[in-house]
């Protein structure tokens, strides 16, 4: 009885003008409507209506790109929440870490999640690159997407690195000091680039503000734009490329 009434309710809801204006296709119980799920939504930019069945297998991609993307989404969600509690100034930045730990509800959980997701993203992105290389998935027509991927890996490293300074503890300060001292060694431009990055000659308040802006605005926007190109091109280039296969006569099928 109860089940029947909820069915009626759901049918009424799905038939309503407001619902139909948002979701244009009916229930995805026929292949026609399943294709409409892709056609009539943003999905078409990412996925074709049908995919090769073997691309769903674990050993095809090990889902490493997906893991990296999932990390990016978790990082955006937790990062926005962390921004509510954070001031990029000295010494308030460090006090905010303590606030997160002792005052904010689940503040420590939020910070932990952000940190572990960042580490996992660096790791999974690197593994993703190795997977693509050993599956030779950089071959034509995917050459440029490989290059976009390399830039994305660098963007990931820079995001993680700029975020490393934000807690403003000893670990952050000296970690960034060590790294930016390396940049100083570059011939001609090294000193200038370091000055531009830090807003001074040492890691200071200015550096904290610059790293904050890079970490929360510049690099995430760059990452999202490149990520859109990267994922869109995967579809344009014929879907994910798995391990090279040996055909019957021993020659490789691309």
């Amino acid at each position, binding site marked *: 009885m109860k089940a029947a009434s909820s069915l009626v309710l759901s049918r009424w809801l799905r038939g309503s003008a407001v619902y139909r204006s948002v979701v244009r296709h009916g229930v995805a119980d026929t292949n026609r409507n399943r294709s409409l799920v892709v056609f009539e939504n943003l999905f078409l930019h990412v*996925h074709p209506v049908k995919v090769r069945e073997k691309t769903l297998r674990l050993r095809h991609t090990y889902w490493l790109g997906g893991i990296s993307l*999932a990390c990016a989404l978790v990082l955006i969600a937790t990062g926005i929440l962390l921004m509510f509690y954070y001031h990029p100034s000295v010494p308030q930045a*460090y006090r905010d870490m303590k606030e997160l730990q002792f005052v904010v509800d689940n503040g420590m959980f939020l910070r932990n999640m952000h940190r572990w997701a960042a580490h996992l993203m660096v790791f999974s992105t690197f593994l993703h690159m190795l997977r693509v290389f050993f599956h030779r998935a950089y071959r034509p027509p995917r050459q440029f997407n*490989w290059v976009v991927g390399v830039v994305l890996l660098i963007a990931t490293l820079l995001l993680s690195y700029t975020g490393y300074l934000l807690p403003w503890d000893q670990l952050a*300060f000296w970690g960034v000091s060590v790294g930016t001292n390396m*940049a100083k060694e570059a011939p001609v431009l090294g000193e200038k680039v370091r000055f531009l990055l830090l807003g001074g000659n040492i890691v200071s308040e200015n550096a904290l503000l610059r790293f904050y802006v890079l970490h929360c605005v510049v690099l995430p926007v760059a990452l999202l734009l490149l990520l859109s190109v990267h994922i869109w091109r995967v579809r344009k280039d014929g879907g994910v490329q798995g391990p090279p296969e040996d055909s019957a006569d021993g020659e490789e099928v691309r």
Partner: protein
Amino acid sequence: MSATPPLDLVESGDPIATPRRVALVRPDIRPAVRTKDEKYVMTFPNLIVREVILFQIVVIALAVAAILLDAPLEGIANPLETPNPAKAPWYFLGLQELLHYFPPVVAGVLMPVLVVVALVVIPYARINLTAGPLWQSSRAAGAAALAAATAGLIVLFGAFRCWPIVVPTVAVGIAMFAARGGERGGAFRRTLAKVTLPEWIMLWFTVVAAVLTIIGTFFRGPGWSFVWPWVSGPQG
């Protein structure tokens, strides 16, 4: 209509020597010639449901990690008090380890730039597109050149006493030459025999990067001296 004259099939890639070519169908440039019947499935629900599940698994795993392990937080930043050792985040510790052996401009600038350039050119370098198993067309000259290049790398990094690179180079070099003639060996050697030269190089790079990062993370203490991780815990 006269009977078709018997066909004289000659296989040749040289149009001057065999001008009466009728058709040239190369399997690697005409994918239509070797189409395969592939099974397709609907993206929704097959792929999209899997993606949602993957996302959930990642979120759950991260949440469990976030409950069990706290992110590190040390005392407030103090420019006057340098910790010993001062370490970069783990993914840069390979570079920092290199700094121990090479002048800063080499370890901090030249090598990272070379790595990025090498990664970017991968799909445009011909060898990456055409290379077959390394020892399949094994010629003595090629093997000698390869041995010389490997030895050259070992001597170069040995001159800087950079053992974290020398040891993996020797190990990968041994594996590479052990793969020679491996087609007739056991399962492992047969797998090794299928590895192409670009793959050997990437394998070498990965092993070197991993060894450097692990040493930098776990085996470096005050003054960048070698320590055992169970004596002093990992830092950075």
